[in-house]
């Protein structure tokens, strides 16, 4: 059980190296970072600095080449693919730049998707989905398909999908990157509201306006943290 102020994420000397044929690319170098429960952290930096790689490791989509990663007190560095999937499903909510809704599923089914992987009952799924969609103001589009929604609406549905499972942390990768400014503002307002309600958020962005909404901004440059980082 974690309480506000406790460390939710702890990275110690994290590194990631990609090997392609004979070329070795060091995407992350000795990254140490702590994110507290209830904190909103913005990760920024120029293109190719390792922002997305860092978020992939934080989201257990990828594994580090070096260092340790503790999530909610558990060392998740050496988990198997199946164990990582289980942690992702229960502890992490994702909001992607490209929304990543599944075209063949309705809004309701898309939001329920992560819950189905938990083996949750249909009744409970429905309750969670209704609640999540109500929070993002999309309850009226339950049976629509993604192609029938605007970009901003799709991202709001994606946010609902991320929060439906009540994860420990929300990871957002350039959540406004595919949106116009009006829709971008709306989505950021939504994230701010979630944060206000107690959600822990890590957001990758290179838009300073949105980075300023976070409690703390972390800069990456050539795979390393460019400024001292610590709890806010």
């Amino acid at each position, binding site marked *: 059980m974690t309480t506000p102020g406790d460390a939710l994420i702890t990275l110690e000397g994290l590194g990631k190296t990609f090997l392609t044929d004979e070329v070795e690319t060091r995407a992350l170098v000795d990254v140490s970072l702590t994110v507290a429960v209830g904190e909103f952290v913005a990760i920024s930096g120029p293109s190719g600095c390792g922002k*997305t790689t860092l*978020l*992939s490791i934080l*989201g257990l*989509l*990828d594994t580090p080449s070096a260092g340790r990663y503790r999530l909610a007190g558990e060392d998740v560095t050496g988990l198997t*693919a*199946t164990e990582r*999937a*289980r942690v*992702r*499903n*229960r502890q992490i909510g*994702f909001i*992607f*730049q*490209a929304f*990543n809704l*599944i*075209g*063949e599923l309705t809004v309701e089914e898309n939001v329920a*998707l*992560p819950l189905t*992987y*938990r083996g949750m009952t249909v009744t409970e799924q429905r309750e969670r989905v209704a609640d999540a969609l109500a929070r993002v103001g999309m309850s009226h589009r339950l049976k629509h398909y993604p192609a029938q929604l605007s970009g901003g609406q799709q991202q709001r549905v994606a946010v609902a*999908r991320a929060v439906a499972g009540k994860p420990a942390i929300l990871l957002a*990768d*350039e959540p406004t*990157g*595919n949106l116009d400014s009006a829709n971008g503002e709306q989505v950021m307002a939504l994230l701010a509201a979630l944060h206000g309600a107690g959600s822990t958020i890590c957001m990758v962005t290179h838009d300073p306006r949105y980075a300023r909404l976070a409690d703390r901004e972390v800069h990456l440059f050539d795979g390393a943290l460019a400024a001292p980082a610590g709890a806010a």
Partner: protein
Amino acid sequence: MTRPIRAATLVHAARMLRRRPAFAGFALALVTVGAAAATAILAVAHATLLRPLPYRQPEALHDLAVDLRQSARVAQRSAISARELVAWRGASRTLAAVGGYAPTTVAVTGNGSAEAVAGMLVSAGLFELVGASPQLGREFRRDEEVATSAVAVISERLWATRFARDPAVLQRTLMVDNEARQIVGVMPARFSLFFQPADVWLPMVLSADRLRGPVRTFSAVGRLRPGVSAAQLATDLAQLEATLVQEEPDVYRGATPVATPLREALLGNQRATISILLVAVLLLVGIGAMNVAGLSAADAVAQQTTTMMRLALGAHPVHVMSLRVAEGAVLALLALPPALAGAALLLAAARALNPGLIVGPEALADLPVIAYAVGAVAVMGVLTMLPAALADARLEIASLAGAASKATGTRRERASRDVILGAQVAITVVLLVAATLLTRNLGALLDRWPGFEQRGVVVAPLAPSRAARETVQDRARRVERILAEVQQVPGVAHAATIQTRFVLNENMQSAIDIDGRPAEAGSQLTANIRHVSPAIFAVLKTRLVAGRTFDETDREGARVVAVVNESFARQLLAGAPPLGARIRRANRADAPWMDIVGVVEDVADAGAGVALGPTLYVSYLQQNTPTARVTVVARTPGDPAALADPVRRAIWRADPDQAIESTLPLEALVARSVAEPRLRAMLVGLFGASGLLLVLTGVHATTQHAVVRRTREIGIRSALGATPRSLLVDTLVGSVRPAIIGLGAGVVLAVPTVAGLQAYVREPVRPSDAPVVLLVVIVFVVLALIAAWLPARHAIRISPTIAMRA
């Protein structure tokens, strides 16, 4: 705008295929197999349905026969008599020419060892009637249609093997059935009349003394005069027949001449089968092409980035499409030689299983058939790559930035793919069930006790002797001499003779009278008849049920005796004690009454599973005729094949001029008698196996296609917490579900199919066959799961980081 495919494009296409060896290999294998099957069946269809008969103006040729109507509803098509042939030939106003023929076997001696060869009795002018000419000499004249004419026309093969292609062969003679015949003609290589191979043609005897009586043994062909209709021909023949009725009412009353176009008469019964096979093969080939097309569509998705790069760099869509078509052309070029070889193998296998087939591998030497093969590979090659070409043409450069496919496929696309796969599975299940039951039936036929022990027996049918001067005793002594020599062969335990060649459906029947049991008015009792030597039942190990078998005392001058089988006793004696009952051959004033002295079990000597019914055995030493065929059978505890040559030499020691048709183990003859069910089982099995292969390809392609198309979706699901196992199961279920639905439909469709099969099998389908069918279904499901699992494994290797890409 179109752009021709140039050599450079083909080279480029070949290089691109080489870089995708798995796809190229798979596509090549399927194009080859599909084209081989299509070419083989098209070769058969060409020879039987499309190609004109190899005769001059074949459409004018008609087969002539008579309908001896047995009842108001049952027609019985029959050969014609010598008198009908002569009458029609001489007086028809609608036929320009009429010819008769009758296949036979003759013994050829001199200029080499004695040999039984296929021969044919033909009327004068028959070769000219069909438009054939001897390459040397002439054909027969009318004045040679007499018993004393000693002439023969020989085949090119006989000319080569017996006369070393002697140009002066027309001055030489050939010993045919111990008679010297002057050779008057040599026919060209590969010549045959009406698909019946022959090495010797002899003139029919149509002299006045042969023109009376009820014997109908000739087939006949007539050439219609120009402008004559079928109705006019029928009227003309009916009038001619009416004249014969007036002259010999007992023989010709009730006989109706029937004229049928020759193609219909020769090939009509094969047309339906071949048409069904043609449709089945084309269907399978179509399905195969569709499945490979599914693969190529997946390949197109995988190659999307490369293709869009080409478009971005200025390639015209037609150029991109032509590259795909060129890949199809390369596949076709590579597939042509193995497809031709495969078609030759299929045709050779079919003929090996059923020597009666008129089409063999030599059909592939025909230019049109080669053109079919080229067409088949070309169509399959192009069809294979067409979906990829069309997919490439629809690509938009604007989406190059996100080249990794974001599409997950429309519901409609997926539904149509599922329906096609389900239909394939249903058809395949029906074929597999049918093939399994036909194979089981074949096994049951071979396992059933035929009334004799087939192992350890060698069989040597002798050519009939036409020596007219031989008496019953002469023939008996000759058989005894032959058996004495064969008995001396080391390894021979027993030897005997029987009047059968163990050939499918070859049977000899005789009308009989039973003393004290007159037949009902208007009917005649008949039974199969076998002239045998005394030891026959010991050689065949046939069980004696009652009484005794023949012995050495049952010969001319002694009490005339007979042995019957159980069916005879049961059906014709109706429960009366068989031993002591008296029977005789009917319609012969001099036929003696025979006392039944023994009953043996039923012997199926006319093919495995062919029930003969009542059979009468008489002692060859006691009664025989020139036409009663003699087949030597010898039992050995060792390998019967090793006895073939010694037995042949022993027969020739007894009679150097005796022609021997063959010397084969009885097991081989029994196996040959099931050639047709074997061929049927093989064909259906082949279709079933092809269907299975195609379905597995379809399942594989569908799964692969789904994985490739859904790469991003799978990555997203993985990012949202789907475990590798759930991704695998999800992918497998998506691919196998339509297969399972098709499986259910196939099982339902198999029920009427199995019911329909009953008409084609000699052993009935039993409920005990159900577990075998169930096993087939289980094996199918397992194979389908494996076919889906192979590409589905890739789903769990898709990195969830793909979801992070914009």
